């Protein structure tokens, strides 16, 4: 049989208020709050003592303690003496423990509400600061590459090998699938339009040029941003959390050379090769539609493709691949190195690395396209 926690307030004398507690004071039940006592006190400014009678109390837990803590705050605010003698001994001891260390008031608090203008200002300052950090990181990366060229960079060849394998051979299945399907889709869309003019054969030109010059590099870049950029950020971020990067720094080993350089190098070397492979897969995708659906002969399709793709197109595509590789590696490593020291910060770093890399890829595609247009190639 459990009885609900009840409270009765009595006033045996003018300056004393007696709190009589009965029943079960357990969390989850509907318990009276300290505000009831406050209401009672409001009408009677003469009260100086608060005493308890808990003889009818059957059981209690944190529910009682939080009530008592609230009551304690109320009493100290109204300068009322709280007499704990009537409480169960266990509750007295726990209260004493809870009040043993005074509440810390000078500890740094989470920032409260800020006005819109202050928020805007902070964000702007933050934007400039992060742009500065990005430039600094790129500068450090360039210095590391220069040291590499002079043969002075410190990194482990075996690390480089492992990373190269992870960013190339292991990426082949997903790159194959995506680029094959993109080639196929391009061919389908082109075929519908070109069939109207009986010019199906130009599907080969369309797929070939689009894939080789642009699409293969972009699709591979985006796949690698998600697959490898995020992984780099998570790896380096976890190393940051584990103080592994601190351990490198205190040994005088530059994390830039030891961690970032091999990753950047691996992607810079492997991305053009991946692009080349992606080109082939894309053209194969187009060929399936051309040969299978439009009844173009296999050799015919091949010859038309070979005729359409110039060396320039191939060069621009591979160069884009190289640029995207460096962007993905830099974005991943930068976000990883900037990572905070918690699990959620690692997640943020990975997310932010992918976003940064994709933005970088799209912006640099635009720049390369405009430059090529101006140069007339």
């Amino acid at each position, binding site marked *: 049989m459990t009885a609900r926690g009840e409270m009765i307030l009595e006033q045996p004398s003018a300056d004393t208020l007696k709190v009589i507690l009965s029943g079960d004071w357990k969390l989850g039940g509907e318990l009276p709050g300290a505000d009831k006592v406050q209401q009672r006190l409001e009408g009677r400014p003469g009260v100086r003592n608060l005493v308890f009678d808990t003889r009818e109390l059957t059981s209690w837990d944190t529910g009682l303690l939080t009530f008592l803590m609230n009551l304690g705050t109320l009493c100290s605010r109204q300068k009322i003496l709280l007499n704990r003698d009537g409480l169960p001994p266990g509750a007295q001891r726990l209260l004493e423990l809870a009040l043993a260390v005074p509440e810390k008031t000078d500890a740094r608090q989470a920032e409260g509400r800020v006005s819109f203008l202050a928020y805007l200002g902070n964000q702007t300052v933050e934007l400039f600061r992060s742009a500065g950090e990005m430039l600094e990181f790129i500068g450090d990366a360039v210095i590391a590459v220069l040291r590499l060229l002079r043969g002075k960079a410190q990194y482990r060849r075996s690390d480089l090998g492992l990373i190269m394998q992870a960013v190339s051979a292991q990426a082949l299945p997903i790159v194959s699938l995506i680029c094959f399907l993109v080639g196929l889709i391009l061919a389908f869309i082109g075929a519908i339009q070109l069939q109207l003019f009986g010019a199906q054969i130009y599907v080969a030109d369309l797929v070939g040029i689009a894939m080789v010059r642009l699409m293969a590099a972009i699709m591979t870049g985006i796949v690698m941003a998600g697959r490898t950029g995020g992984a780099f950020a998570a790896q380096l971020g976890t*190393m940051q959390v*584990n103080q592994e990067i601190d*351990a*490198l720094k205190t040994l*005088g080993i530059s994390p830039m050379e030891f961690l970032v350089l091999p990753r950047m190098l691996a992607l810079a070397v492997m991305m053009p090769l991946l692009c080349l492979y992606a080109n082939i897969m894309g053209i194969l995708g187009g060929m399936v539609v051309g040969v299978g659906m439009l009844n173009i002969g296999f050799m015919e399709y091949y010859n038309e493709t070979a005729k359409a793709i110039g060396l320039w197109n191939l060069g621009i595509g591979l160069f884009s691949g190289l640029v995207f590789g460096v962007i993905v590696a830099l974005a991943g490593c930068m976000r990883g190195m900037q990572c905070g020291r918690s699990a959620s910060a690692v997640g943020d770093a990975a997310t932010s690395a992918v976003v940064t890399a994709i933005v970088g890829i799209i912006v640099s595609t635009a720049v390369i396209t405009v430059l090529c247009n101006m140069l007339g190639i």
Partner: protein
Amino acid sequence: MTEKEAHITVQDLTMAYGDFVLMRDLTFTINRGDIFIIMGGSGCGKSTMMTILIGLKTPAKGRVLYGEVDFWGADQQTRDRIIRRAGVMYQSGALWSSMTLAENIALPLETYTDLSPGQIREVVKLKLALVGMAGFEEFYPSEISGGMQKRAGIARAMALDPEVLFFDEPSAGLDPVSARRLDDLILELRESLGTTMVIVTHELASIFAIGSNSVFLDVSKRTMTATGNPNQLLAETRDPNLRQFLTRGEKS
């Protein structure tokens, strides 16, 4: 140790995160061959103190001298050169997770010495044996327990026979016997190699057993309140906070 030579001097140091001041007006000297304890309650800035001493965090104010050289006033190269003579054991070991224990310990040796691979292998074996982990050369950090990671971290910190070794909470998370063995190791290294030890800890048993000098950071006053041999401090102090810390708050 007849005469005491200052190894690391901290002058007028203020530690802060942004505008939040953690500790101010810190001035103390770590002598060569000291086992120097940085002690204080949780959150008092012990570990932050260490990050400043090993060059990972810039102090808000004040100076750190290594011998005669102003550590934070010098350029990055000088700082790198100084800190290369120091070994650091991090709280969780901070072993490089992509390398085996042997590779972890070998990396500083490969980087800064001309030893042949065979010699390096021997040194690695010895250092691991010193921390009681002989035979674990080919394990990866994730394959061993937290206490073992810590000990391997010490082995790595000792790899280059540094002049000064920093320990961040060395015995936290170790079983009593391992903690005791670690204390013995620290004493032995000081005796045989004359290494200066700087230990961040609040493990009382270790503090009294091995500490020859110390500084107490009082979190309520935001500054240091005492420096000296911990046993002497316990005998002489009148500061209630320090007494409470050194006696676990038990009334004598």
